[in-house]
């Protein structure tokens, strides 16, 4: 291979890498996603949860790590719900039936909504499945997690608890 083609490949490779590293959104007021019930109907936006710490989790029936994350989120909702935590599981399945099948197998004890068109996912810039977005009581997006791994669950929990403990900032 000549130097020239080597450079071409190098540039292509760099292009891929830099695209993958792109990120953004943290520290900014979260967009007001419009969410509906699974199967359609009943619109709701994220602003409805103002004052609570919102844990927005984007999931789908075909996503393996999602099945692992549900028991963790169930536990989190049960234990921290009284402190003001609202876990919102946003389903991105194109067919509601798939989501119901998944829920039969892996039940969810937190609020479930749907975003079949992917509009909210697009607004929040979802880059991976599953993705969790932690929004504080002021509606500011604070943390984004790509994927779910059981060993990272404790770190996630610590972040949620920190957000719950925050007092309102002096404006």
């Amino acid at each position, binding site marked *: 291979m000549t130097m020239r083609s080597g450079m071409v490949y190098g540039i292509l490779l760099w292009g891929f890498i830099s695209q993958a590293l792109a990120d953004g959104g943290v520290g900014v007021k979260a967009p007001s996603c419009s969410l509906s019930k699974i199967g359609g109907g009943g619109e709701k936006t994220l602003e409805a949860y103002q004052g609570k710490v919102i844990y927005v989790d984007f999931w789908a029936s075909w996503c393996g790590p999602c099945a692992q994350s549900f028991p963790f989120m169930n536990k989190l909702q049960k234990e921290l719900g009284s402190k003001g935590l609202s876990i919102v599981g946003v389903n991105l399945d194109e067919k509601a039936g*798939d989501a119901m099948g998944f829920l039969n197998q892996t039940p969810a004890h937190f609020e479930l909504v749907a975003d079949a068109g992917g509009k909210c996912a697009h607004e929040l810039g979802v880059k991976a499945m599953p993705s969790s977005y932690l929004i504080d009581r002021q509606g500011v997006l604070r943390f984004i997690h790509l994927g779910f791994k059981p060993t990272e669950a404790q770190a996630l929990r610590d972040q949620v608890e920190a957000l719950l403990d925050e007092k309102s900032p002096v404006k």
Partner: protein
Amino acid sequence: MTRLFGLFKVCMKAAKSGQATLAFSRRFSYSCNSLLRGLLLIAFSVVLDGCAEVQPWERGNLAKPHMGLQPFPSQAALREHIYGSRESASGSTASSGGGGCGCY
């Protein structure tokens, strides 16, 4: 495309006429070298353009079990093992990663 096939033919003829003791790098003529480069460039360019932008949440179909590159891996391995012992060509370069749900 026809030019590509032409290059292939030259490559194959070179492969057939040469002697076994020639070193690999000399084995292939200049046309074969450029053929290889051409193939890699094609692979990369295919990757760059011609693909739709698929959002992470639109990978439902790709995540289906039968959409994996190898839906029955141990069976495939057994069959490749048998083919490899009955045929001269070596196994495929099937990669060990890619496609699927793209979950982290």
